Each structure stands twice: as C-alpha cells, then as structure tokens.
C-alpha cells in the first residue's frame, strides 16, 4: 500500500462494512473459470463497455496463466481491477452470459476479473506487467483524477506521454474513491489503483481548474491536449420548506463523508432516502448495513420507473430497506431547536404531489439522491467547448474530442452519469485517438 492509500484516516464508517464479494481462492477461481463455455463472438464481450475479451481472460485463469489473464483485461481496461469490483456485472457481462438463458448461474465474471487483476498486480501494481515507453516530449493535462482521467492519463503514459492530473480533492480517484459502496470497493482500494497509474509516470497536482485556480488558457498553452473528466457537481435539492439545516444532506456528500471522514461515523437512527436511482439504493443499503434503526426509500413514481438496478433493489430489501413508492417530500419537520424530526410526504400521481394526501413519518436523517448539478463553468475555460441542453460536454463519439480540437472529455461530465466502466472506455478512446494522431 502506497502513501496515498495509507494516508486515509482510521475509524471511517466504511471500514465497518465487509466485502460482499471477497477475492476468490485459486481453487474457486479455477473451478468457476472451467465453467466458461468459451463462446464465439461472446455476448459478454459485446456487453462490456470496454470490450474486454472475457472468455480469453477466463480461459487463461483456467490454465493458470494469471498474468496473461490480467494483461487481456488491462489492455482494454487499465482500471480493470476497480471495474471488477464496481461494475454492475448483472446488467452487463454476466447478465448477457448464455448460461442465463439456459436457466443456469452465469459465470461470475466480475469476481474472476478481480482474481486475475488482484493476483497479477498484487503489491507491484501495473508495473508488474507494464513498463512505460521513454518520454516522447508530448504532454497532456487532465482535469479531475477520476476513472476517465486515469484511463486517459495511464494509457498515454504507457506510450511515453507526460500526463498531469489536476485534482481539487485531497483524495484522488474520483467517485471510485468517494462514491462507491464500500462493500464493493473501499476507498483504500480505489486509491491503491490510482497509485498504480501514478507509478506509470502520471503526476497529480492538487489544484482547482477555473476561476480562482489554474486557468484553462494556461493548460492550453502548456500542454498538447487537455482532457476534461470533472464528473458532476453538487447534489440537487428539492426546494421544500425545512430542507436547509442539519439532518438533510445530499447523497454524494453523505457517501463521501461516510467513506472518508472519521467524524461521520456516528449512530444513524431513522433514515429517509429520497430518490429511485442507484445512488439512492446505495445510500439506503449503506445505512441499513451501518445499523440504521430504520431505512425508508421514498420515490415519487412506481418501482417499475426506478432507474436503480433490480438486483440492487432486491439487495436493499433483503437488508431491510422499506420502499415507499408514489410519494414525495413536501416539507422537512424540525423541533424548536432545529433538529430534524420527520418528513411530510404527499402521495403522487404522475410524479406530482396530490393535494390533501400528506402524511408524516419520523426521521433523524434525510438523504437526497435526486441527481447532481452539472459543472457548467468548466466549459467556459476552453473556447469552443460546447454543452448540450442537459449541461453535458458535447464530444465526438469516436474520438471523444470536444468542439475545441485540443480538448477532450469523458466520464459523467459527458454522459450525464453512468458507470465507472463507461468513463474508462471514454478516457481510453480519447487516449487511443491521440496516440494514433501523434504517430502519423
């Protein structure tokens, strides 16, 4: 473990949550790998946003060629370790496994990928398998040190490009470090992977890019290309009475503190989570696992309309999370001292509150998981970079290039918020485009 990872304080709430899918033993991995049918034109590859050659890496585990297996994974996805733990495989590779249609258990692709990458990289990291080419004089800057930027910077560093990550947080890794459910990937592991990328020669500068910080114009002058991987902004608010004040917090904020701040490790009491996406389910599950006395998820539409994954909701319900459908908060209730004591809900129709249907439920904490703002200001730093109507950076699909030819972008700030593996694919594709361009 490097200095970055070991600098994380002890006593953080996330450390109380055990790994839900621990590392397979060699025997378990071998047995599972032997089950793979080695499909032709395999559906799992097609379902993977980074198109890892999954049957090949699995067959290499079966033969005992674990380093080769890791190479097969990492050549498509340099963050294959965190993706193995974070990816919703039920919705992607494993969900498309032909065994599924046959009524059999799909191959545990995520766990096999973790086995291969964790075993092969171990304490040495990516340097166990890769030696970056000598520096070729090219320089790139990345804004943000999340998965998209890491994939971009790491891919280029291997080719001899000097890459610098500009990160405003003390802990790099983006949502991998600050936002992933701890029972999937604790922050220490996310930061360990960042260190592996840094060991390829990538550098971090702790600096904000924008007004009052490093300016876009400086980056454009100093670097051959700039990659924007800033993710999303502040948690959205409901705009209802009583919302401002202690006890009502944004989901992304709450998760970050639970993962990184030892001070945010107290008893949880009764929790209401507002929202129907995967962030909402994550918060609900984390609260339930951390010992909250009650967890209710409040969603303004029906279960079928939820964007959260069915397997995650199922997990939440098994952990005791109550789902309140067709309801929305219309006010947060506080005692005279300002302490949160409850939330007033209204039943909804078509997502809108129905007058006269209000009722109250008690709670000690309300977490709002209803979306995040877009970091629109970053576009203004770079002439030509455009945002779409949602506030997402507009790029060319294939090259990830913005309307400014020196500026590329990927991850949540482009796609509006999807999976880590999508961010990796986007960062990688931008890097591959530049490698091809610069070798012309």
């Amino acid at each position, binding site marked *: 473990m490097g200095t970055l990872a070991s600098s994380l304080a002890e006593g953080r709430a996330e450390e109380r949550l055990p790994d839900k899918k621990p590392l397979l033993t060699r025997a378990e991995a071998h047995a599972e790998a*032997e089950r793979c049918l080695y499909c*032709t*034109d395999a559906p799992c590859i097609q379902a993977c946003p980074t198109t890892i050659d999954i049957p090949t890496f699995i067959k290499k585990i079966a033969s005992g060629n674990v380093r080769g297996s890791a190479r097969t994974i990492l050549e498509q996805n340099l963050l294959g370790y965190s993706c193995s733990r974070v990816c919703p495989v039920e919705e992607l590779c494993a969900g498309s496994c032909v065994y599924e249609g*046959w009524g059999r258990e799909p191959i545990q692709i995520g766990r096999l990928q973790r086995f291969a990458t964790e075993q092969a990289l171990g304490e040495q990291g990516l340097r166990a398998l890769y030696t970056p080419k000598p520096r070729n004089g090219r320089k790139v800057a990345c804004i943000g040190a999340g998965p998209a930027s890491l994939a971009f910077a790491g891919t280029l560093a291997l080719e001899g490009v000097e890459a610098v990550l500009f990160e405003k947080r003390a802990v790099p890794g983006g949502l991998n470090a600050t936002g992933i459910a701890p029972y999937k990937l604790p922050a220490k592991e996310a930061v360990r992977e960042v260190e592996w990328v840094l060991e390829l020669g990538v550098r971090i500068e702790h600096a904000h890019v924008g007004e009052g910080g490093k300016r876009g114009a400086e980056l454009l002058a100093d670097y051959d290309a700039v990659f924007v991987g800033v993710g999303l902004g502040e948690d959205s608010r409901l705009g209802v009475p009583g919302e401002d004040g202690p006890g009502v917090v944004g989901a992304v904020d709450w998760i970050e503190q639970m993962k990184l701040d030892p001070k945010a490790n107290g008893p949880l009491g009764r929790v209401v989570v507002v929202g129907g996406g995967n962030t909402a389910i994550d918060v609900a599950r984390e609260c339930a696992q951390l010992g909250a006395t009650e967890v209710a998820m409040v969603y303004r539409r029906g279960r079928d309309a939820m964007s959260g994954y069915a397997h995650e909701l199922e997990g939440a319900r098994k952990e005791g999370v109550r789902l309140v459908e067709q309801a929305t908060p219309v006010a947060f209730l506080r005692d005279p001292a300002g302490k949160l004591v409850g939330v007033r809900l209204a039943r909804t129709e078509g997502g809108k509150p129905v007058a006269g249907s209000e009722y109250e439920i008690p709670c000690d904490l309300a977490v709002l998981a209803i979306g995040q703002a877009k970091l629109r200001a970053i576009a203004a730093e770079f002439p030509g970079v455009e945002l779409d109507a949602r506030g997402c950076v507009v790029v060319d699909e294939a090259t990830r290039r913005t309307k400014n030819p020196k500026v590329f972008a990927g991850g949540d700030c482009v796609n509006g918020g999807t999976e880590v593996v999508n961010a990796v694919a986007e960062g990688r594709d931008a890097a591959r485009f530049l490698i091809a361009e610069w070798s012309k």
Partner: protein
Amino acid sequence: MADLSIDFAGIKSPNPFWLASAPPTNTGEQIMRAFDAGWGGAVWKTLGDPIMNVSSRFGAVDLGTYKMMGLNNIELISDRPLEVNLKEIYEVKKRYPKHVVIASLMTETKDDWRVLIKRAEDAGADGLELNFGCPHGMCERGMGSSVGQEPKLITEITSWTKEFARTPVLVKLTPNTGDISEAGLAAVAGRADGLSLINTIKSIIGIDLDRMVVLPRVGDGSTNGGYCGPAVKPIAMHMVAALAREAGITVPISGIGGISNWRDAAEFIALGSTSVQVCTAVMHHGYRIVEDMIEGLSEFLDQRGMKSVNELRGAAIQSYKEWGELDLGYKIVARIDDQTCIGCQVCVTACNDGAHQCIFTGDEEKQRPPHAHAHGPAKPPRPFPVGLIAGARVPWIDEPECVGCNLCQLVCPVPGCISMVEVAGENPHETWNDRTRDGRTKLPGGIHD
C-alpha cells in the same frame, strides 16, 4: 428383472461386475465389503513374492473440474506376505461361497508357478489370472508386461500354468504391444481358459514444472507408470473388440479399461466381454458404485427385452467393420434446434477452424470459403430462425457443404440441441472394397495426375 448371472469359463458369478486386481482388492476385509456392496467377483491384488513399494504411487490427469479422467500408478504387486493373503482368500471364500475370487499371480520360474498356483487354489480361489500386463517395475525384472509383449513367452508360461492348474486360467494382456490379437492367440495357444484386458498403458502422467520432476514424484524422480481410468476406455474397447471378432479367440473375455458405470459395462459386453473388471472408478468413488451398475444394466436389459445379460454379449460386434466395408453413400447433416440453442456459437468456431467451414451466423447471405464445393454464397434459412433462448444468435448450417462429421454436435454443450439427420447422399451405396473389386479406386487429383 433380467438375469445378470454369468458363467465365465466355468466360473459362475452372480453378476458380471468384478473388481480388477488393484488396490481395491488388496485385502480380504476390503473384498468382503465390496461383496456386501454387490460386486460379483474380485481379482485379488497380484500375489507373488512380496515386494517393496515407493511413496508416492499415483498421478492423475484432470479434465476441467472432473478429477481423475486418467490415473497412473507405479505401485507393484501385493506387498503383503503370501500366507496372509492366502488366509484371507480362504476366509472370504468361506463367508462368500457364491462370489468369485480370482487370484492374480505373478512369478518367474516354472517351479515358482507350480507352488504359487497350488497354494492359491488350496486357499479356495475360483480361478487364476496371470499378470502379464504390469508395465512398471515388475517388467524390469522380466515379469508383467515383459512377458505380455512376447507372444512366445505368453504361450510358454500359460502352458506351464495349465499343467498345474485345477481351476480356470485367465491371461491378463498388456495393451503395450503392436497387435493385441497376436498376444491373445498366443495365450489361447497356451490353453488359456479366458483373457482379461486391458492392463494399464505405459505412461508418464505429468511433470512437476516447479521442480522439473516427473510425476508421481518419488523424491527427485519418478518412473513410467500404468495408465487407466475413463481416458483409456476407447483403447480398451478396441482391443476387446479386436479379440472378440478374431476367429481364433475361442475363450471368454473379461473386459477392463475405464469402466465407470453400467453404460460402460454394457458397451464392453456388447463388444464381446463376458465379465467386466473395474478399478479406477472404485478408487475414485468406492464400492458403492456397483449398485447403480447392477440396477442400470438390469433396467437396460429389461427395456431391450433381453432376459439375460448373455443376450447382450457381442451384440455390437457385427457392426465393427473394416473401413473398407463402410457405406460411402450414407449421408448425414447437422441440424440446430432453435428452441434449445443457447447461442454460445461454440459450434461456429469448431466448424470454421476445426472442420468444414459450413456453420454461419446472422441473417444475410455469407461468402463461402474459396475451397467450398458448392457454388455461390451460403444462404441462411428463410424464415430466419429466432431462437427461443438465443434470439438472433442461433447459427445455421450451410447444408450443401456439411459433410456430417459430428464435430458441432460433439462440442455443443446443450444435449439434444444439434442432431445429425440422414439425407439423400450424392454417392451410390457402395463400399471402398466394392470399388477395389471393380478397379475404381483411382480418384481425380492423385499423385500422377
């Protein structure tokens, strides 16, 4: 229930299932447990002058997660004093008079054979099996397979034993020979009453790549061992069948080699075996497997309307022909069932790389390879099949190019999904031998064309 009892050269057995001479028949205590489980007979671990064994002794080949697809051993014959073994044979026969105990024997001089045979028969053995097969250790001392590889020695030693034996003499043959028929005929020439085959195959089971030492490792080295288990069954069946259809082989055969269940046993019996002997499957799963063997074989015989296992014996032999007698006009092609196909497309790669390039995917016409026999593109079926499970991933067969090789069916993980269907062939129903007789063996494109 069909009658499973057999008469092997005068040895009556309640069923055809015998334990082969090996670790499962090392002691009387084991054999009595085996008889309690249902085994009809046991060939005792080979008797002779006691030997010394090494540690370790066994090595195996696994196939995926299936353990012991093939097993190899470097253990020698019984390492227990002869007197102890004989006392136990006496004890077993006293307690289980209707079960078969055959004494496997191995020694050198004629006088040794005389004494050994007398002592084994006095102990109550129902028959004798001469171990001319062991391919490791004993053969270095001029015994085991070093006898079985010399037809003259087989005849000579067998005839010695026949001078002394009062009970039937079975000769156990080694597969480590060029022509099994020659060995079998040599045993018959020595007046053997029956043949057992195959013994194990000379083999190196593997290498410990970390230590660079042959397996099974005995300190810093190892030796070639005897290979057995499911992997050797096809080799054993060929040898059993070769003897069963050899006119000069007039004695019963005890089939051995990878038999693990009643189906394997039925196949050996259909190829001419009177009894079958089992070792590896028992070493893997224990004596208990015989229950299913007895029940399964009975059910099978009942379903086939056979009253006795004797009716099954040799039933498939007439179908075992020379290549030259096969029907050149017979034609089958593969059909894929779109209701059960899971879309793995393993058949696609197998056919494309390993067979005849006639399985395609997708609903457009496909370019045939340049060496194809049929003209034009391969045409997908219309309407294009939409699989119940696999949707648009169900592959299709370019039937004009399909040679009916079976490979797709063999690799398909879904039982019954790919079937081989008889179609009208382009060639007349004739054999190569017919063509040879008519002088039509020259095909275009030969060496001198």
